[in-house]
């Protein structure tokens, strides 16, 4: 870092508690212009809370914030925004039915007198999106676009304003905080985002970047600050910082191996899928989101499925699980027996478990406690004759919690009060409790910290040793390469390549995922 860079932000001795639980204690943090400062740490370390304090989301904290040399204390998001601070939150804050342009200008609409200046907003929105390399119809509802695009719109909402204000010559947006912005993005989208970050950096912006992905940290960071359990552990320049050291800071212990895949002995074919199709709204002649897919998974095998957003791989798992009802064709055999995927209930009965890629939306019942979530998919076994047996449920959940190393104050705790990694473990507990023959994992480590990731890998090994057939979808290439015994690649609903564990490389997979012909 050169001396010419000026300090944009200094946060000093920040403390914050949620209903008596201390989430930040005496955390300090600073940011210079033209710098990407990565905030790293496990889930629940307090990273998101810290930037929410900066962005004016929470105003009941102690400690000082200085912007330049001016002490500030924001009472609202708009106050922070007016001072040039923009936060891109982990959870999308888009209003689905509203148009792209309306979303980008939500809360800071352009007006002419009392009237909304829709033309101007549409024009600006298009320009901001173009800056991100996106060409969208800004009058269409946000909900019409896939999750990856929505995330880009969210980013545009936060950062797009920068370009406009800089042009006006008025006080430009100086600080952008991004909370795991790439968790739902595909490779090319991530590349675009990194391009934007570079651009912002060169224009003197300071960027706070929260991520769990090791390669992103090293790719982007100028400096790294590690938080653990709400405390500041270390701040260091990224160049020359040892990876193992960083992980050790984050988890407070050493992780000797990042991906501990132990190959299990594979057995009989447990899942066989032949000529599987999911038909779109056009009926059997319409576009197929999954088109003529066939594959097999053996007992103890982990089959990885690679593909970009829109490749149909999540739909494939959903289709096998019965979420598409009658709009699927093809044959599925489980342990040699025919299976018709008409509804999730039948699939659970047949021994399939689907860990979806969104635990909040489709995995957990947030209001219910750990026990109730754990037994939800296997409740018949805990309620002979319809009467619930709470003691048996608790015993089973305690056993799962033990083997999954779930961290919680009590099993009666509602899952909404758990951190992301622990929530994910509850979803996993729910499915392991059904004693599945086939485990379909869609992004099992999304939004999960390093320590929990490691444990999930360890569990995958245990399951495969037990003879469970596992299908794994993950957007993290190193994870896919390390954990899969075999990898198939999907592009536009079709399988475009298959690789053995040894022949697979990142480059080949990416090429196949983009629809190129690749020799195995």
């Amino acid at each position, binding site marked *: 870092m050169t001396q010419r860079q000026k300090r944009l932000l200094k946060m000093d001795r920040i403390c914050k508690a949620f*209903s*008596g*639980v*201390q989430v930040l204690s005496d955390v300090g943090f600073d940011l210079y212009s033209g710098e990407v400062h990565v905030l790293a740490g496990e889930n*629940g370390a307090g990273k998101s809370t810290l930037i929410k304090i900066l962005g004016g989301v929470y105003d009941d904290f102690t400690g000082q914030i200085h912007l330049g040399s001016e002490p500030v204390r924001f009472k609202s998001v708009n106050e922070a925004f007016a001072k040039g601070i923009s936060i891109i939150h982990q959870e999308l804050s888009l209003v689905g039915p509203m148009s792209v342009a309306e979303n980008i200008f939500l809360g800071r609409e352009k007006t002419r007198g009392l009237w909304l200046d829709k033309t101007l907003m549409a024009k600006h929105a298009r320009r901001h999106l173009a800056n991100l390399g996106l060409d969208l119809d800004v009058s269409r509802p946000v909900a019409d676009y896939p999750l990856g695009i929505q995330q880009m719109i969210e980013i545009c909402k936060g950062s797009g304003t920068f370009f406009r204000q800089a042009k006006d010559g008025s006080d430009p947006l100086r600080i952008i905080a991004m909370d795991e912005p790439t968790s739902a993005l595909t490779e090319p989208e991530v590349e675009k985002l990194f391009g934007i970050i570079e651009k912002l950096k060169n224009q003197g912006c300071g960027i706070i970047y929260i991520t769990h992905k090791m390669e992103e940290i090293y790719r982007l960071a100028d400096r790294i600050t590690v938080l653990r359990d709400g405390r500041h552990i270390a701040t260091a320049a990224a160049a020359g910082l040892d990876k193992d050291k960083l992980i050790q800071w984050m988890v407070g212990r050493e992780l000797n191996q990042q991906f501990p895949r132990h190959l299990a002995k594979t057995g009989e074919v447990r899942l066989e899928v032949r000529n599987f199709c999911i038909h779109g709204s056009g009926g059997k002649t319409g576009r197929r989101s999954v088109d003529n897919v066939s594959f097999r998974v053996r007992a103890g095998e982990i089959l990885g499925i690679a593909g970009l957003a829109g490749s149909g791989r999540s739909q494939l798992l959903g289709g096998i*699980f019965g*979420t598409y009802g009658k709009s699927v064709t093809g044959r599925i055999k489980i342990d040699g027996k025919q299976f018709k995927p008409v509804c*999730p*209930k039948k*699939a*659970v*009965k047949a021994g399939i478990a*689907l860990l*979806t890629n969104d635990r909040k*939306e*489709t*995995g*957990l*019942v*947030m*209001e*219910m406690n750990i026990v*109730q979530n754990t037994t*939800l*998919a296997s*409740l*018949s076994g805990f*309620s002979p004759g*319809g*009467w*619930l047996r709470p003691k048996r449920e608790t015993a089973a959940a*305690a056993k799962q*919690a*033990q083997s999954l*190393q*779930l*961290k*919680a*104050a009590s*099993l009666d705790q509602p899952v909404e009060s758990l951190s992301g990694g622990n929530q994910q473990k509850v979803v996993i507990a*729910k499915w392991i409790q059904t004693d599945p023959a086939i485990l379909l994992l869609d992004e099992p480590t999304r939004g999960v910290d390093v320590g929990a990731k490691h444990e999930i890998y360890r569990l995958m090994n245990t399951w495969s040793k037990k003879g469970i057939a596992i299908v794994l979808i993950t957007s993290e290439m190193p994870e896919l390469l390390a954990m899969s015994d075999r990898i198939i690649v999907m592009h536009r609903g079709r399988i475009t390549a298959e690789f053995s564990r040894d022949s697979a490389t990142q480059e080949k997979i990416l090429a196949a995922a983009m629809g190129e012909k690749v020799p195995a």
Partner: protein
Amino acid sequence: MIYEHAQSKTRIVRWLYSPTARALGALAVVFVLGIIFNADGAFLNWLTHRDMLRAVSVYGILACGMTLVIITGGIDLSVGSILALTAVSFSLLTIHRGISAPLAIVLCLFIGAACGAGSGLLIARFSIQPFIATLAMMVFARGLGKLISGGQKISTAVQIPDGSYSYVEAPQIFTFLNSKVAGDNISVVTLVFLVCLIISWILLTKLRPGRYIYAIGGNEAAARLSGVPVSAVKTLAYGLSGLFCAIAGICQASQELQGDPEAGIAYELSAIAMVVIGGTSLRGGRGGIWLTLLGVLTIGYLEKILSINAVGEDKRLMLTGAIIIAAVLFQKTRK
């Protein structure tokens, strides 16, 4: 198991923030008001409480079913109309047709449950919004009640062939349901309400479908993907709501000694208010039947206190509206 976040609050402090404590608090405030404005000791007399309980029982029975439906994340606007339909049916069957009470009760319960399950099926199978489906059922059941009653109140005045009316004796079941037991200290309808509460409590906390009701209200997509039979459970919840309407309708007919096709208008709003004041969330997934009891008692006592203090209906309604908001705001204040 590894423990994280040491508990900084004791059990008691946490309990004080629970919905139960808040609902109890609201009830306590109303109760204290009653003791202060006791209308020359009227509030301190058990008979006042007995009458209050009698007056809220029919609403309370409706609120039991409403609680189930609201926890699934839905709403049932048809309860007042189904109440009228079954009250009319019950009077017709027992007074005019002379059908034995047990058979008439079974038939009415069936009618109520069928109406409720009807809305449930529309909601579960055809994905019609609960508000719309039960609104339609509300109008339909009201019409059906008027059709079978000819738009007339079905009372003990029976028209004889020459066109004049003669009064018949009310069937025993009417007098029984309208009587008081335990040395005149408690009304039979209040006991019926109590039974409904217990049934709902067992369903919600002890039985598998009850767990599923909470799961669906909390996160329907997650419940479906966990193999929960969502359609069946929703149909059950609305069907039970209809069943409770029938029970309420039978009680109402007995209390009024007639089946009135215009009965129960706006009862759905009272039932919803009671559930919400108790602290059950309209967004679904949270709440419970004892909370609903607290809500029922809060509204019941409030109305009673206002009426024994001779506050006119106009002011009573306005005050009730204000208190609903106060109670809900009181429940919302967290931290």
